[in-house]
């Protein structure tokens, strides 16, 4: 016996709350009633990333995708699809997305995600070059070497509208053109795989899942700008990515796709791996090149830009992993195809590492112009535990928080900047009502204090001073004056710091003060942390009317500051309490109060 059809009912939290379970039961009952229960298997699945149109039901093998299904529809689905083999047209998903956002007419799809960079991740074996080749791998290199002049490649990049995915969004074609225009005996091509901001792992996953896409793109760049030598600068903390990259380089050389006389065309190019020790500042391009040369990783003032004068004083193209991974697709599918995706100023897709208080954390790739709401509430399946969304941090320690009122803003380089954040490399950390905004700012500033290279005083001293002020506020010792000071120092750093690290380090704090000033004031004036994160402002006590005297809290307390018995009930000695919160978590009767 084998099933002819499979019905998948979404059992994700979004759909579950809109009666997916009833639909599931109705489907089973209908299959039984109509005598086809041996022809169809009905199962529940995880979130489809389309919660807005839930509940979702998908039928296989016909791939029918039904949205906003009601329990009353179950019988019709069984009667039509399973019994008669016809789709239920009125329930099918109709692509009603804004036409200016995704215009890839030749591809029908219902998902919010669109994978260009991650096209091969999770599909091919990254350690087998044949699988990459089978999926149009090295077809771009083949096309470039056999039928395109360097200027044609630059023209294609220009039409595509590709901009750097490492943060700043600089047009890739322009960078390449600068480098190509310079006469030099040697030029270099560098892949920035340093990826240091907390919460980001897009570049690591791309190299782990599809290393050849980066190799192919760098080789194309070598041909275009006239370079024979490339480096991948990758942090040593990424052992699996490094291992797969090594295997990929070896296989590419064996196939004659790297090395001397590539594919018999007379063009030569090779790539070496250089390991970074994991300093955030080494992701900044000038510091990275210093580190590559064997010097201490410290930035140097620009201009001259690396494209003109970079590694060992030679013209050097440095691009981010994700930028590279886009390029073979632009060449094979055509720049016009690519330029159809995205917004007016930002073309293509962006990969985000979606983490924090969201149900479906993971790597997501969406067309530019997708809204945060779609990413967090559809693909991400909403906030964990049904809590309230507070904000999302983009751009990590260089970006800022985006609040609920901007959830429907289409995301691109410009819109994020105008919201006081930035695209950054693509970390996207979701925060809920339990996150304290002052504490989050303190966390990012602490990161910058640790990672500042110390070369310029605005950054070295500024980060320390801002951090001290933030700590003071989280301890309940701040004054309203401190808020002004934070803003003043922050603005000075933005103007005076040498590199992007110092110039952007104040961003998280400044954005957070702007959006959540009331929370800062609450810490300062009322000595209160509404999220309960700032330990010095939290007091634990026991509500005797709720305490049943079980003593569980006292047994959990690591410093023995809870005493009492069954009749007297229990009390916490606030002077000894270290505010670990164990008692609060342990109490089954909500008798421990946190204020």
């Amino acid at each position, binding site marked *: 016996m084998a099933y002819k059809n499979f019905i998948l009912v979404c059992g994700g939290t979004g759909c579950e709350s809109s009666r997916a379970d009833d639909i599931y039961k109705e489907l089973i009952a209908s299959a039984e009633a109509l005598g086809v229960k041996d022809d169809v298997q009905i199962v529940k699945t995880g979130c489809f990333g389309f919660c807005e149109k839930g509940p979702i039901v998908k039928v296989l093998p016909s791939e029918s995708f039904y949205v906003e299904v009601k329990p009353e529809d179950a019988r019709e689905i069984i009667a039509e699809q399973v019994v008669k083999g016809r789709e239920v047209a009125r329930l099918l998903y109709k692509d009603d997305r804004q036409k200016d956002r995704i215009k890839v007419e030749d591809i029908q799809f219902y998902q919010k995600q669109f994978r260009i960079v991650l096209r091969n991740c999770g599909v091919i074996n990254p350690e087998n070059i044949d699988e990459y080749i089978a999926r149009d791998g090295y077809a771009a290199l083949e096309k470039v070497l056999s039928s395109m002049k360097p200027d044609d490649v630059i023209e294609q990049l220009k039409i595509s509208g590709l901009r750097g995915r490492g943060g700043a969004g600089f047009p890739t074609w322009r960078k390449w053109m600068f480098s190509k225009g310079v006469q030099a005996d040697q030029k270099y091509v560098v892949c920035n795989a340093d990826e240091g901001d907390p919460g980001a792992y897009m570049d690591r*996953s791309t190299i782990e899942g599809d290393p050849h896409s980066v190799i192919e793109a760098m080789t194309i760049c070598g041909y275009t700008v006239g370079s024979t030598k490339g480096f991948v600068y990758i942090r040593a903390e990424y052992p699996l990515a490094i291992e797969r990259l090594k295997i990929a380089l070896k296989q590419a050389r064996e196939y004659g796709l790297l090395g001397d006389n590539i594919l018999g065309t007379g063009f030569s190019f090779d790539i070496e791996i250089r390991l970074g020790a994991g300093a955030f500042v080494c992701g900044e391009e000038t510091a990275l090149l210093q580190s590559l040369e064997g010097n201490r990783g410290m930035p140097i003032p620009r201009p001259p830009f690396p494209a003109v004068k970079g590694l060992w004083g030679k013209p050097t193209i440095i691009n981010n992993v994700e930028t590279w991974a886009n390029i073979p697709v632009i060449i094979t599918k055509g720049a016009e195809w690519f330029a159809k995706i995205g917004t007016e100023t930002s073309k293509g897709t962006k990969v985000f590492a979606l983490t924090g208080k969201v149900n479906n954390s993971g790597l*997501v790739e969406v067309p530019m112009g997708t809204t945060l709401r779609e990413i967090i509430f559809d693909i991400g399946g909403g906030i964990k535990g049904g809590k309230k969304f507070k904000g999302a941090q983009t751009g990590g320690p260089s970006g800022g928080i985006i609040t609920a009122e901007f959830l429907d803003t289409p995301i691109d380089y410009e819109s994020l900047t105008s919201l006081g954040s930035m695209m950054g490399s693509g970390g996207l950390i979701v925060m809920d009502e339990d996150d304290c905004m002052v504490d989050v700012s303190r966390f990012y500033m602490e990161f910058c204090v640790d990672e500042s290279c110390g070369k310029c005083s605005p950054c070295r001293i500024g980060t320390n001073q801002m951090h001290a002020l933030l700590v003071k506020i989280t301890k309940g010792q701040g004054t309203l004056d401190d808020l002004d000071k934070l803003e003043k120092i922050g603005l000075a750093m933005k103007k005076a710091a040498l590199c992007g690290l110092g110039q952007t380090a104040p961003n998280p704090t400044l954005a957070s003060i702007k959006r959540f000033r009331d929370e800062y004031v609450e810490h300062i004036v009322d000595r209160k942390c509404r999220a309960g994160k700032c330990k010095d402002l939290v007091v634990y006590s026991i509500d005797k009317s709720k305490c049943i005297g079980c003593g569980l809290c006292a047994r959990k307390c690591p410093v023995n500051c809870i005493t009492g018995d069954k009749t007297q009930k229990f009390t916490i000695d606030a002077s000894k309490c270290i505010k670990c919160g164990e008692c609060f978590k342990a109490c089954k009767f909500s008798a421990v109060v946190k204020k």
Partner: protein
Amino acid sequence: MAKMTLEQLRKLREEKKGDMQKRDVEGKSIQIIVGMGTCGIAAGAKQSFDEIVKAIDENKLSGDVIIRQTGCMGLCHVEPTVEVVMPGMPATIYGRVDAATARDIVVKHVVGKTLVENHIYDRPAVDIVKK
């Protein structure tokens, strides 16, 4: 393989494309693909992989099944992930595949041709290469 020319690369691609489309690698018609990115491995993909190998052996299926690895599919919240592609069944992605579920996948899906409840996930995006 020796170094190739442009022409040889073109030929190799056509040949490998055929292989991928046949979905029939090395004469084996069933593929089990395990997500082995850092996220998958951290969540226990190696244990699941081993369990699949064991279950395949016990069910005397090694002649029909090829087990492959791949990178991160993006479903990090439900790692480890495993995809099964075989004739007569829709290509299926399973998530939260611990050793017990890995065994279920072999016994119920591969042998029994039924889907394993509560572990199915949708591929998150269309394949732009195929179209």
